[in-house]
C-alpha cells in the first residue's frame, strides 16, 4: 500500500475511533447536567445518586474522547501537509477557535465539576457542568464548521495558489452547517438515550433492591424519552440533509443509491448487488418513484445518475474518476438508516412501556435494549464513513483531491508504523474503557456517596468478586 492509502486508513481509523466516544459525551452531558439541576432544586437523594452514577460513566467515556482528540489536532499537519498548506488559511481558523473557545471551557470546567463538590457553593458547582455541556457542544459546532468547508467550500477565493478566506461570516454560516450540526447533535443525543436505556434495562433485569429499582426506573424513563425524541429528530434533520446533499453533492447521493443512470421518476433501491466497474446492477429490488419522493417530496422529478454526473464532472474539472467507492457508500448509508429504523421502533416501545409504568414487566424489551446500545454506534460510524467516502475523490469538494493533499515527505513506512501504533494503542484503550464502563454500570447506585466527591473506585460487592 502506498502512503496515500495508508494515510487514508489512518485518518479513517483514528477519526471513527474518536467519534466512537464523542457522541456519548455530547449527548450524556445534558442528562448529567439535568439530573444535577434536579438534585440542587429538590434535594432528593435519588437525583444526586443518579448524577454521580451517570457522571462517572460520562467521565470514563470523556477521557477517551479527549485523548483521541489530541491526534485530530495534529494529524492534518502530519499526514496531510499539502492539504494544510492549501486550505490552512480557511480551515485552520475554526480549528483554532474550537480549541480557544470551546476546548478550554469544557476541560477547565470539567476539572472544576469533578473536584468542586465540597469546594464550591452548590449553585456555582452546578453551573460548571452546564459550562461543560455548552463547551463540548460548541466544540462540535466549530469542528463541523471546519468539516462543512470540506463538504461545501464557501467564503474563500483561489489566490496565490491556495484557498484564501474572504468571508469569515460565510464560513461560519455555511448552509451545510445548518443541516449537519443538528444531525450530529441529535444523533449524539440518541446515542446517550440508548446508552441510558440499555444500562437501565440491564439494572432492572437484575431486579435488585428497591433503591436501585427506583433509580433505574427513573433513568429508564429519561433514556426512553430522550432516545425516542432524539431518534425522531435525527431522522427528520437527516432527511433534510439528504435533500440538501442531492443539490450540493449529487454524486454522493447517486452512489448512496447505486443509481447508475439518470431516472425520472427515480426508484429507491432496497437491495442492489451491482458491478462497480461496469456500473450496472446484477440484481436489484427497487421501489418505483420513491427516490424522487425522498429528493423532492413528490413522486416525480429527475435524479441524476452516476454515469451522467461523471460526464459533467469531467467537463467541469477535467479528466479523472469522480465516482466514490459505491459499495461503501451504498452499504454504509443503509447501515445508518437501518440502525435508525430499529432505534425508532425500540425507542417507541420503550417510551410506551415507561409511560404506562410497565418498563419492568417486559423481560423481552429489557433483554433487547442491552445489545441495542450498539445501534447508535453503528449508525454514527456508518454515517461518517458514508459522508466522507461519498465525497471522494475530493478532500475538499471541487477544490482539492485527496491524492493531492497527502504529505509528500512522509514515507509509506512511517505512515504504516504510526497506523499500527495508533490501532494497537486505541484497541487496548478501548478494551480498558469498556471494561471500566461495564464495571461501573453494573455497580448500580447502592455504594454511591451522598456526601462530597464522586469518589474513585467503589468498595462494591462486585469488585470483591472480580
Amino acid at each position: 500500500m502506498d502512503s496515500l492509502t495508508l494515510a487514508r486508513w489512518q485518518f479513517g481509523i483514528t477519526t471513527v475511533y474518536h467519534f466512537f466516544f464523542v457522541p456519548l459525551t455530547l449527548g450524556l452531558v445534558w442528562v448529567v447536567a439535568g439530573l444535577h439541576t434536579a438534585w440542587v432544586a429538590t434535594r432528593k437523594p435519588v437525583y444526586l445518586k443518579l448524577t454521580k452514577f451517570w457522571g462517572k460513566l460520562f467521565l470514563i467515556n470523556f477521557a477517551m474522547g479527549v485523548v483521541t482528540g489530541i491526534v485530530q489536532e495534529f494529524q492534518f499537519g502530519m499526514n496531510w501537509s499539502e492539504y494544510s498548506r492549501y486550505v490552512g488559511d480557511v480551515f485552520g481558523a475554526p480549528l483554532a477557535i474550537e480549541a480557544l473557545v470551546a476546548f478550554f471551557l469544557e476541560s477547565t470546567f470539567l476539572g472544576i465539576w469533578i473536584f468542586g463538590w465540597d469546594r464550591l457553593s452548590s449553585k456555582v458547582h452546578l453551573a460548571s457542568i452546564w459550562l461543560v455541556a455548552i463547551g463540548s457542544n460548541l466544540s462540535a459546532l466549530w469542528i463541523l464548521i471546519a468539516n462543512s468547508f470540506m463538504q461545501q467550500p464557501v467564503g474563500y477565493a483561489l489566490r496565490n495558489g491556495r484557498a484564501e478566506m474572504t468571508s469569515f461570516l460565510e464560513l461560519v454560516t455555511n448552509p451545510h452547517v445548518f443541516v449537519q450540526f443538528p444531525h450530529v447533535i441529535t444523533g449524539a443525543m440518541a446515542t446517550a438515550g440508548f446508552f441510558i436505556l440499555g444500562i437501565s434495562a440491564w439494572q432492572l433485569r437484575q431486579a435488585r433492591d428497591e433503591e436501585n429499582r427506583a433509580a433505574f426506573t427513573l433513568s429508564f424513563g429519561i433514556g426512553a424519552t430522550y432516545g425516542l425524541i432524539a431518534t425522531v429528530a435525527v431522522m427528520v434533520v437527516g432527511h433534510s440533509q439528504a435533500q440538501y446533499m442531492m443539490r450540493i453533492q449529487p454524486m454522493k447521493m447517486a452512489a448512496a443509491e447505486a443509481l447508475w443512470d439518470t431516472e425520472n421518476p427515480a426508484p429507491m433501491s432496497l437491495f442492489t448487488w451491482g458491478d462497480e466497474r461496469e456500473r450496472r446492477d446484477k440484481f436489484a429490488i427497487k421501489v418505483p418513484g420513491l427516490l424522487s419522493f425522498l429528493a423532492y417530496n413528490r413522486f416525480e422529478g429527475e435524479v441524476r445518475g452516476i454515469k451522467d454526473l461523471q460526464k459533467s464532472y469531467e467537463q467541469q474539472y477535467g479528466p479523472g474518476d469522480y465516482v466514490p467507492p459505491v459499495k461503501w457508500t451504498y452499504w454504509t448509508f443503509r447501515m445508518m438508516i437501518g440502525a435508525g429504523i430499529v432505534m425508532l421502533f425500540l425507542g417507541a416501545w420503550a417510551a410506551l412501556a415507561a409511560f404506562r409504568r410497565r418498563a419492568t414487566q417486559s423481560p423481552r424489551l429489557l433483554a433487547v435494549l442491552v445489545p441495542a446500545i450498539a445501534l447508535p454506534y453503528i449508525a454514527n460510524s456508518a454515517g461518517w464513513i458514508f459522508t466522507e467516502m461519498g465525497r471522494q475523490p475530493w478532500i475538499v469538494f471541487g477544490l482539492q483531491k485527496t491524492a493531492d493533499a497527502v504529505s509528500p515527505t512522509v514515507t509509506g513506512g512511517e505512515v504504516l508504523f504510526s497506523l499500527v501504533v495508533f490501532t494497537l494503542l486505541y484497541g487496548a484503550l478501548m478494551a480498558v474503557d469498556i471494561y471500566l464502563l461495564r464495571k461501573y454500570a453494573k455497580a448500580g447506585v447502592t455504594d454511591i456517596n451522598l456526601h462530597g466527591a464522586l469518589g474513585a473506585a467503589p468498595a462494591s460487592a462486585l469488585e470483591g468478586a472480580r
Partner: protein
Amino acid sequence: MTFDLNTLWFVLIAILFTGFFVLEGFDFGVGMLLPFLGKTDEERRRIINTIGPFWDGNEVWVLTAGGAMFAAFPHWYATLFSGFYLALLLMLVAMIVRGAAFEFRSKDRDPQWRATWDWMIFFGSAVPALLWGVAIGNLLKGVPIDANKHFVGGFFDLLSPYTLIAGVTLLLVFLTHGAIFLHLKSTRTIRHRAAVVVKAVGPVATVAIATFVVGTYAWTDSFARLGVNPGLVPVLAVAAMLGAGAFVHRNAMGWAFAMTCVAMALSVATVFMSLYPRVMVSSLNPDWSLTIYNASSTPYTLTVMSVVALIFVPIVLAYQGWTYWVFRHRVGPDTTLEY
C-alpha cells in the same frame, strides 16, 4: 521589528507556548515524580490529586498553540508536524496514555492495575518533556528544509548533542518546577520529599541551563543574532532561575515557584526572540527558512483570528486563574481524593 499582524500572531503563539510550559510544565514534573515520591497508594493518589483539577486545562494550551499555528502560519504547521513525524507520534502516544492513566488509575483497586497506570503517567510526562526540549533545540539550530518548505531530513537528523542537551535541560527544569509545585500543594511526608528533590535537582537543572546556553551560542546563530549583550529578556530569565535557587535556600517555596514560572516564560520569550522573524530555520539555505511572512495566512484571516484571540485569551486566563484560586488548598489526609 515592525509590529504587524504577523508579528502579533508570532507573539500570541509564544504566549500560548508560555502558558503550556509554565502550566503543563509543573504537571509534567509532578507526573515524573509520582512513582518515586509516592511510596504508598494513598500517597500516590494525593500526588495525582494535587494536579487533578488542572492537568486537562493545562494541556489545552498546547492544543490551542497547534491550532493557532495551523490558522496563522499553515506552512509552519504543515512543515513542522510532517517533518517531525516520528517524534510527534511518540509525543502523541505519551500524551494519550497519560490522559487515560489519570482518569483510569484509581477506578480499579487492583495494585497491579494502579502500578501500571502510575508508570504510564511517568512515561507520559517524561517523554513529552524531553521531546519538547529536543524540538526547541531543533527550532533554534535549524533543520533541513528545501526551497519548497519541505522538511527533507529524517528522525535521526533531529538528534544531536545540542538537541539532546536541550531535551535533558527541559526535563530537569520541569522536574524542579513540578517538585516546587508539589511542595506547595502537599503536606508532611510528601512535602518533605518534594523539598529534598527541589534541593537536589534544582542545582543540576541550573547547570544544565548554563550548558544549554553555552551550546546555543556554539551551535546556533543566536549569538550572531542577539550579540554579546543579548538584551534584558535572557538575562532576566537566568536571574529568575538563580532567584528561584535563592528562595529555595530560604525555604520560601511560593516565591521560588513564582520565579520558576517567570524563568520559564522569559526562556520561551528568548527562544522566540532568537527565531524572529523566522519560525523554522533551514539548515540548508538561510533563504529557505520559514518566516512569519512566507508561512503565514492572509491579513484577513489574521485579523479575524486576532479579534477572537484578543477576546478569548483574557477570558480563558480569568477562569483558569479562578480554578487555581478555588483549588489552592494543600492536598492532605483530610482531602477527598477524586483520582
